[in-house]
């Protein structure tokens, strides 16, 4: 039993980190008032970019860095469309998602199923021998620790700094923020780009850290779960981090259960994260309406009211 729990918890980050990075990115974006439906595509692009560059150059660090840039670049296109041109956010998000999936599929085609040497866990001696939590906490790759740092940093940025205050103000009441001298469009563009970078990193984690291979449709709906996690987390990066680990643990449980021979239909099991997502959204909708924590200007393009 201890063996089971240890290996379950040990494999949880592999499932949790992509969700955590993507959902924290989306939290940032939505706090700035922009609804980005494209996470799935940014993650696919990131995963493919990281895998292809790691395969050709043999260096996962370069692959990961390139994935971050690719995600940010795709997000910038989205940002140009919704912030500068004031396009419909949902449509623009879906369109860039399709672009990301498309590029990943076409460019990645020659590299499908070629495994490579990915990112290796950092062994922290002794501490990783602690029963149960040892492997979870001290035998992970550097991105796991980075993800936790990003989560805390993002929370600090949003809640404790003037830069974060501006982002929040833009997401709540862009007109008032504008009057207060905040450059609304710039704030939104920065938040969108950073969120694209985080989604790219999330994708890179999938290919370079948790599976060391690129296959088509590798993201498999995680971008959508991340989007739901944002609501679940009430737009709080730390809660998004925690929620991602909760989801990751559930996802990690499925293959373990199959391995020890629990008789459960595999398709039903694979459906669980999505069912859980719907349940979470329903609960969030039911309990959250009174407090209203959603950024008030989420999804509404801001147009200045002046008529020079």
């Amino acid at each position, binding site marked *: 039993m201890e063996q089971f729990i240890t290996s379950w918890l040990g494999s949880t980050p592999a499932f949790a980190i992509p969700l955590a990075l993507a959902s924290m990115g989306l939290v940032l974006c939505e706090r700035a008032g922009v609804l980005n439906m494209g996470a799935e595509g940014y993650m696919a692009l990131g995963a493919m970019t990281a895998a292809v560059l790691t395969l050709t150059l043999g260096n996962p660090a370069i692959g990961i860095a390139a994935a971050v840039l690719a995600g940010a670049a795709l997000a910038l296109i989205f940002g140009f469309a919704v912030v500068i041109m004031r396009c419909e956010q949902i449509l623009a998000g879906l369109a860039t998602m399709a672009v990301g999936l498309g590029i990943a599929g076409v460019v990645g085609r020659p590299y499908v199923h070629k495994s490579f040497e990915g990112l290796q866990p950092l062994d922290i001696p002794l501490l990783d021998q602690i029963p149960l939590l040892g492997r979870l906490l001290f035998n992970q790759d550097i991105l796991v620790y980075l993800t936790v740092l990003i989560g805390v940093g993002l929370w600090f940025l949003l809640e404790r700094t*003037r830069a974060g205050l501006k982002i929040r*103000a833009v997401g*709540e009441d862009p007109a008032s923020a504008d009057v207060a001298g905040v450059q609304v469009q710039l704030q939104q563009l920065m938040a969108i780009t950073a969120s694209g970078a985080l989604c790219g990193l999330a994708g890179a984690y999938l290919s370079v850290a948790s599976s060391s291979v690129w296959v088509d449709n590798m993201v498999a709906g995680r971008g959508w779960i991340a989007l739901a996690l944002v609501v679940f987390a009430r737009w709080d990066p730390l809660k998004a981090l925690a929620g991602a680990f909760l989801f990751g643990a559930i996802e990690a449980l499925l293959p373990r259960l199959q391995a020890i021979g629990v008789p459960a239909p595999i398709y039903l099991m694979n459906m669980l994260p999505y069912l859980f997502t719907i349940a979470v959204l329903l609960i969030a909708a039911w309990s959250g309406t009174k407090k209203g924590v959603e950024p008030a200007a989420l999804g509404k393009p801001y147009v200045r009211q002046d008529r020079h």
Partner: protein
Amino acid sequence: MSQGSPLLTLSAIDKSFDIHRVLNSVSFELARGEVHALLGENGAGKSTLMNILIGVYSADAGKLELEGKPLKIGKPSDSARQGIGMVHQHFRLVDRLTLTENLLLAADDHPQLKSRAAAREALLNTAKEIGFTLNPDCQVGELSVAEKQRAEICKVLALGARILILDEPTAVLTDSEASSMLAAIRRMAESGRSIILITHKLREVVGFSHRVTIMRRGETVAAGLDTSDLSIEKISSLMMGSSSTSLSPDGIDSKKAPSNVQEHGPDLLAISHLNARRDDGAPALTDVSLRVRAGEILGLAGVGGNGQHELTELLSGIRSASSGSVMIDGADALGLSPRQRRKLGLRVIPADRMASALVSDLSIAANLSLTSVVSGRFGRLWLNRRRMQREAQASIEQHEIAGARPSGRMGLLSGGNAQKVLLAREIDSGMKLLLAHSPTRGLDIRASALVHQRLREAAAKGAACLLVSEDVEEIMALSDRICVISAGKIMGELPGDASAADIGRLILGHE
């Protein structure tokens, strides 16, 4: 107060939006340490002038000077840097942030306010200086309207404003809140700041301002008069103008028809003890009772935002009342849908015709037949398009809607022609009660006169008309009886031939 060189001078300011001239050589002068009241009816140009001063709009012509030096203002942050701050009627505070955070947000040009502690301290000091109490750590969304206003004033002052523009500061306050706000305004002036007070309430002007500037129709009609030389009556007549400027260009008769006060006609609209709330929960209508008989026009006068919007929405059936009753042609209408009310004979000309009555992307024929399509007159399943086009063509000819073809797009018509389309549709054989809210807003004199003629014809044919308007001259030109609404209450009823001064006194809350 007015000795010495003025602190701020605006001279010969012109401003047009498209072809519409809203400011015509306006001048304004502000001295150090004074409360200067800026008066005028809605649309007189006060807000435009102030928006030019704070950099929201730019003037087409004219000169701005601060302490004798030319003042260049291109955007709102320029005016803030010069120490000019405005407290808008709609507060510019982010609800989900605390007051301190709202100040931090605006502190880009104020390095000394960039830490949370410093911002908090600055707010508390400002509040203490002008005698407000406030909690800088409270989320703005949880404050009452009066608290929000104090918060906004403290924020603007903490950012270093020495010229403070207050846009109808007491409009949203209760009487006791208003008097403490006015006292605070005097204290701010005594501490050396200059206040521009935009208000509609003459009592405040007389009691609390040093000087008065009055605007009417984009022009300054009185500049920098000493308040002590003025009476409420004098100010009121300057604001309203000498009235009865007749709207009769090109031979269209717009003079007042003989009164049709109906002594015995049936009440087609009877509103009694009606109460309703605004979207934000504040009372919008308090114990409103009105009745309109067949064949008469009842004018409801008042400054905008005093419950007219809620009343027309409520009568149209798209807002619910908290208590009271509304009878249309003897039937209880409060629980009825807009469609059922329409069957009772209610027709509506809303204030925002493009948003609430016409569909700008559909054809003119479709707009003309929209209500008949709903009732099934053009076929229950399939539309008889040819008949729609034919009837639309007839309407266009009958109502002289210039430049209109049945298949033309609604949105391309000018305001006046769009209003003609709406009138052609609403004034039909089934009409018993016509509700018209600011029916000539944005129209030129000729189109306005035509609208007035249509309303008068409708009443002559036996319809009851409720005319809700902020334009006192329009009310006087059309109404058989006049009621005045202020702060959601009916202030009184006057005969149709009442003078502008009488109406003005009721509007401004003087019996």
